[in-house]
Every structure is written in C-alpha cells, then in structure tokens.
C-alpha cells in the first residue's frame, strides 16, 4: 500500500488538520471531529448536519458552508461517526429552529444518528432526519437493510441547504429533502476496488478485464461481476438500471461522479454518453455535476445519480452555495 498518510491511526485527524488550514471559512474541531461553518449558527435558521465514514471526500466535510451544510461529522474511514460527535455538532448548529440530520442509509449511520436523535430530544433540540437511499443496485425490501445512500446525498444537502438558508422551517426543509431523495436514483460501476489504510490491500480483486456492477461507496463488491466494456456501454448499463427503477423524463439533474481514482477526462466521456441516453428518453441534463463528489478512497470507477427536477427544485439547486467543493452564484 502506498498512501499519503503518516499513520493508519491518524488518517482522519491529520486530514482534518489540513482541511482546517485550507479553509479558514470552516471551523474544524479536530478533537471532537466536527466541521462547522466558522460563522456559527444563524438564529432562526434550520441547522443541517450530516456525517458518515471518512474516505468519501469531499462528502461531507467539503459541503459545509453557506447554502449547504452547517456541520459535518466525519467518522473513521468507512465507519459511521459516533453519537457524541453528532450531538455536539447538532448543539453547535442549532439556531433555535431545529436541526435536520441527513443520514445515508447504512445500518451504522442509521443507528448512530438514531442514538443522537434520542440524546438531542433530551437536550430539547428539535431534530428531524432524512434517510437517503438512492442506490438502485440494492433491492429495497423490508427484509433487507434497504437501499444504500450514495450520490443523492449531494443533491439532498444542496437543495435542503438552499431552502434552510432561505429561512424555511424544519418540516419544510425535511419535506424537500425527502422529495429530492424520492426523485433520485444512483448506480455505480467499479473498475477497481479500493484500499483502506487499515487493511493495506484492495478490499476485493478484479481481473484485468473485469468490473463490478452495482458497487457501493465503501469498497464493497457489487451485485455482479462483468466484463469490461466501452464507456458508452457502461453508461448505458447504469442508466438502464436507473430508468428501470424510476423512469427518466424531463429536466433532470445529473451527477457523473468519480470514485476517487478516475481522471476527470474519463468522467466527461461518460457524461457525454449520459446526455445521449437522456435525449433518447426525451429527457435532458438540465443541471449537472461531473467530478469527484462521493468517492470511495482510490477506487477507479464512477456512479451516476439522477434527480427529476421541477421549477422549485431547479431554483433551489441554482441558489448560491459556497463550500469547499461546491460553489456558485454567491453574492460577495
């Protein structure tokens, strides 16, 4: 394993130290492992807190800032954060209008956020939680842990963040978050596994011409292994999976997300194919993100997330945002 780390035990705090130095507009509590806006909570604004395992950067720490999150709680690599982090973040961002927890659907995240919600109630902070579960590779069923939360988290954080910034009350912010999640679907394809610092070798092995279809964002193997194909066919496999689950039509918000080890030039190639696919279905990529947003350490591959837009969601998507990883349209 060749990684730019000092010690497998100190990966997260060392990275937080760098994040803090690079972004004076954030307040990074390295001890408690929470990342906040330096400006602190705005009275009367709903606070947005997300969190999850590290290794998905820029998710979530890179999305803290004006128009998006108020706090992020990074756990150990691929391990959900713990309740004491989250309760501290929740308390810190509470401006009196309650706090929305944005939770990706993984047992660990769900359980730890659930404990946090109980603790928050004890502290008289009104907390609501939205569960993001957009990954169609996992079949949803009451007999399973349900779909994973992946790329749609970025959409939920951006759009709910914009509404919170506009001063909407908690139940409306929750509602729009749930709506974005309901309209969003993701599917990922891995060309390689990833290597966690703790393990030091790839979580799974893939042959020279093999890929994994339906990967998650933790180096989990996918649902099936398949032969490598041209970008056009891979984009089509992913889009078909999304379309089968929720037919694609109209103005669509599209993210072609790199898993961490894939160059941007390749993501643009995939995006071009996605645009063609959408056109076939009479839809179009009205808004888009192409780049590394929800990564899985050094994994090579991509995921596609789509979200059917309406006028209101488009306006909220377009609203100013100023975070390390997403920024546009902010008045200075």
């Amino acid at each position, binding site marked *: 394993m060749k990684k730019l780390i000092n010690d497998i035990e100190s990966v997260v705090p060392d990275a937080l130290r760098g994040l803090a130095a690079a972004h004076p507009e954030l307040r990074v509590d390295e001890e408690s492992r929470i990342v906040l806006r330096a400006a602190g909570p705005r009275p009367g604004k709903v606070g947005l807190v997300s969190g999850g*395992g590290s290794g998905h950067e820029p998710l979530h720490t890179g999305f803290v800032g004006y128009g998006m999150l108020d706090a992020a709680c990074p756990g150990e690599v691929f391990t959900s954060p*713990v309740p004491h982090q989250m309760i501290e973040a929740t308390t810190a961002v509470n401006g009196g209008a309650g706090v929305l927890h944005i939770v990706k659907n993984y047992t*660990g995240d769900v*359980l730890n956020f659930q404990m946090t919600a109980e603790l928050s109630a004890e502290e008289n902070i009104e907390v609501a939680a939205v569960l993001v579960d957009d990954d169609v590779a996992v079949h949803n069923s009451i*007999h*399973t*842990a349900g779909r994973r939360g992946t790329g749609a988290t970025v959409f939920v954080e951006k759009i709910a963040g914009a509404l919170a910034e506009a001063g909407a009350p908690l139940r409306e912010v929750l509602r729009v978050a749930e709506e974005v999640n309901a309209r969003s679907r993701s599917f990922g394809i891995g060309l390689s596994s990833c290597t966690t610092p703790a*393990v030091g070798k790839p*979580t799974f092995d893939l042959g020279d011409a093999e890929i994994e279809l339906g990967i998650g964002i*933790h180096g989990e193997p996918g649902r099936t292994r398949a032969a490598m194909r041209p970008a056009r066919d891979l984009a089509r496999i992913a889009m078909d999976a999304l379309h089968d689950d929720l037919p694609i039509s109209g103005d669509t918000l599209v993210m072609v997300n790199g898993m961490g080890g894939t160059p941007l030039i390749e993501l643009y190639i995939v995006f071009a194919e996605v645009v063609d696919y959408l056109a076939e279905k009479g839809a179009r990529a009205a808004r888009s993100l192409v780049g590394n947003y929800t990564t899985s350490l050094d994994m090579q591959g991509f995921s596609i997330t789509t979200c059917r837009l309406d006028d209101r969601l488009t306006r909220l998507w377009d609203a100013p945002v100023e975070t390390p990883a997403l920024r546009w349209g902010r008045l200075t």
Partner: protein
Amino acid sequence: MNAAFFASWIEEIIRTVHVERDRLTRLDAAVGDADHGANLDRGFAAVAPVLAAKQPDTTGALLKQVGDTLIRNVGGASGPLYGMAFREMGKVLGDTPDVSVAELCTALRAGLAGIQKLGAAVEGDKTLVDALIPAIRALEQAVRDGVKQQEAIAAAAAAALAGAEATIPMLARKGRASYLGPRSVGHEDPGAASTALIFAALNTVATR
C-alpha cells in the same frame, strides 16, 4: 461471578479482539467494508483507560461503562449494537454482588433485546444475533440441566462458535452484507465471529 470476574472478562475481550483484529477485518472485507476488526479494536482499546480511571465497583457500572465507551468510540453498526448490549446487561445486573448463570442469562437476554430493538435482526439474517442467540440458549439449557457454571459457559462459547460458523451458508438480510445478495453466501459474518470471540473470552476467564 463478581465484579472482578466481569472485569477480567472485559480484559480478556480487549486482548483477544486485538489479537484477532485482522481476522475480523478480513471477514468484513469479504462481505462488508473491511473495518470490523479495526472498529472493535479501537472501541475495546478505549475501554482499558476508562476502566483504569473510573474503577467501577459494581458489575452494572462496569458493563454500562463498557457500553458507553463502545458507543463513543466504535461507530459503524457494531458500536451501537454492542454498546447497547453491554449497557442493557449492566442495567440488569446493577450491583448484584455475585452473578449466577441464570442471572447472566437474563442479562444477556436484555442485551439481545437491545440489539434487536436497534437493529431489528432476527435469527438467520446473518448477523451477530446468529451467534448470540445460540449462546444464550445453550446457557439457559445448562441452567435447566443444572450443570456447573464452568460447563455452562463452555457450552455457551461452543454454541456461539457454532452459530458463527452456521452463518457461512446464510444469505445476509441485515447490515452491509445484505447488499451483496446471493454473493454473501459462503462467508462467515464478521459480527457473529466477534460475538463468538466474546463468549470464548468468557470461557477463558471462567476456566481460570
């Protein structure tokens, strides 16, 4: 089984989880995200200084402390689950000076209930519950059969181990392994393996 016995149990868990860390992580690499060993080792390693500092004098306080420390330090699915289990056991045992096997059964049942309340896993879902329930059943059977404490605990440890091994052919329906669908078949559940370790540690202490 007095507070010192339980303290020895926890120490033995700390030791064996550390020794078996890589094996647990390897199991998790096959069906999960390759962190179970690291998670538990981080959590139990944090327990030692906490206990040294606080020196809880009742079994209940001890186990609650262990549970809280796991919740604070593990994260992931296993942190809240094991954390809650130790907390619930602690609540049941309270300041009982000398815990009988029957009382231990009650405490473990409470721990299991905590786990199931949080995670809603039932037997056959390919989780740590599949090691825990057989262990509790074996212990309860031993109580009914009136066997000696040491023998009862040995039976529980054997049942936990068998339960963990029995997860190999199962199709996961809870936790990350469930994402794999049929590909989860053929691998031992890492949480079940760590539960078996925890009972093996109990057995080690009981046979001292």
